[in-house]
């Protein structure tokens, strides 16, 4: 067994490819395997399809939206849903459907960029913490404990309070607040891998630290990370739009689902559509990502099943 793994690793490193794929999981490419498993779960197919549609609509907003998202139209303020304005208009007479399509570009990118920031920082810290252990581990875990001491949205709130509110700061704040999860998952996975023979084998054949970390360990922790990142985007969209809702994120007149909802709150009693549809957009986006993430979790990493 040990010899076989050693041979496998040397074979892989000789060709300079990642060792995660063939051999460990059998003949098919892992991506194909995951796709097969995903296709069998009806809910993740629904979630994935819905997400693709929402993403495409946001991406194509400039081409498909019937009106201008920012230009005001004083002749039709707070018009109820109709054939000309399927979701009605807001107090400045702007078409809500148009603003939702454009808003998706901001709200979704806040989610994706924040998760990108959290994952890059969190995975790096987690790898270092698990691989080097001792003082590095202690220092990093103390830092993570500190981040976790601020409940929920509060850390992001404190960062915004310090840096000021803007789209970039919103992404940074939401990203930093999400770092701990990535550190913990990565560190846990690394610790369990460090005991395994192929890591030992890589050390024995004289691989350098960074080669072991990036070629042998990282590819083997990607599965739980993909699941975490997918579900994390849903969480980041909620946090991001919540901060915008509070007036601490994307500022009007830029269309963003959270700040549109905040504007609609003032007219809730007499013009329900101004708040209803942006909220529905957030919920559908988050719902589709959660469905997909759950399916991915079942397919990629049964241990994480909750």
């Amino acid at each position, binding site marked *: 067994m040990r010899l076989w793994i050693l041979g496998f690793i040397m074979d892989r490193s000789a060709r300079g490819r990642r060792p995660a794929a063939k051999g460990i999981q059998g003949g098919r490419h892992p991506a194909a395997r995951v796709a097969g498993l995903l296709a069998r779960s009806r809910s993740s197919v629904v979630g994935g399809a819905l997400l693709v549609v929402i993403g495409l609509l946001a991406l194509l907003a400039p081409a498909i939206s019937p009106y201008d998202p920012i230009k005001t139209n004083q002749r039709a303020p707070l018009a109820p849903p109709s054939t000309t304005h399927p979701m009605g208009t807001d107090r400045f007479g702007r078409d809500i459907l148009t603003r939702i399509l454009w808003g998706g570009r901001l709200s979704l990118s806040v989610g994706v960029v924040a998760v990108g920031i959290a994952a890059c920082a969190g995975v790096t810290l987690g790898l270092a913490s698990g691989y080097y252990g001792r003082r590095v581990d202690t220092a990093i875990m*103390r830092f993570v404990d500190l981040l976790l001491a*601020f*409940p*929920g949205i509060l850390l992001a*709130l404190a960062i915004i309070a310090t840096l000021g509110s803007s789209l970039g700061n919103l992404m940074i704040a939401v990203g930093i607040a999400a770092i701990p999860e990535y550190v913990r998952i990565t560190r846990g996975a690394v610790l369990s891998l460090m005991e395994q023979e192929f890591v030992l084998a890589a050390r024995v054949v004289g691989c350098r630290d960074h080669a072991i970390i990036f070629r042998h360990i990282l590819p083997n922790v990607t599965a739980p990370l993909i699941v975490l990142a997918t579900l994390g985007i849903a969480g980041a969209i909620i946090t991001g739009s919540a901060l915008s809702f509070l007036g601490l994120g994307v500022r009007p007149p830029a269309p963003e689902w959270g700040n549109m909802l905040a504007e609609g709150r003032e007219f809730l009693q007499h013009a329900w559509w101004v708040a209803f549809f942006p909220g529905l957009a957030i919920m559908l986006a988050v719902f589709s990502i959660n469905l997909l993430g759950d399916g991915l979790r079942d397919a990629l990493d049964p241990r994480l099943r909750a």
Partner: protein
Amino acid sequence: MLRYIVQRVGQLVPILIGISVVTFLMLHLVPGDPVLIFAGDKPLTEARAAEIRHELGLDRPIWIQYWGYATHAVRGDLGRGLRSQRPVLDSILEVLPGTAQLTLAALALATAVGVTLGTVAALAHGSWVDTAAMALAILGVSMPVFYSSLLLILLFSFTLGWFPATGQGGLERLVMPATALGLISSAVLARLVRSGMLGVLHQEYIVTARAKGLAPRAVVLRHALKNALIPTITMLGLQLGALLGGAVVTETIFSRPGVGRLAVDAILSRDFPLVQGTVLVAAVAYVLVNLLVDISYAAVDPRIHYG
């Protein structure tokens, strides 16, 4: 047990120091000169700036400033709010009970709904009831608290007129915010309880309990649920953090006085001492509550020995 408690309290010290360093540094990490925050609307001359700097101790080395901040904070002196000129701690303590009431009500509601839904789903494993309950749970997780709050107001205040939309005081003003706030947590707990129950239901002691003729009700409630709930208790601490964070949004929407709304108002009006104070108090409260959860966890589960 006592040793565990002492050890756990000891671990708290570096965290508390860390929290105070973070809230202290917030002021110094603000882009630009911190003096501008304290200057108010009056035109800022060079002499006035130097005067403020001296009053606040901003002209002293940073570790001396931190030491001053920390020793004052330990004694409960968090400075004065720039707008109200009241001691920050007084402003916070005044609204803290409101936040505690809201969060605890939401937690109680989430636990009741989550445990019931999770147990029912697990008992009906594989049936349409299970599928429906879990679909409901995923929908609940996907519902941002600001949206569920607005929908509740729209339906129960504006359409049906059952509950007042805003304000604090009385049960009728607590029901909607607590429901909106507890929704996500109840969904999270339902999923957790379901998987916990599924793990427990096939264990041998359950089979034994059934075989000796215990009523199904007793088997589920006394034998299965009790054990399935253990991981749920740990989750409660985490959920409390999410709820405290969610309270920021809920309090703002329902115009309830509370620490969360105080923090948001302070940020929007650039009242920095108040921002620092609310963040500090919320984090310290959260850490202390988690300590209690951990200790009660150790006390509840006899299989776990600490220390």
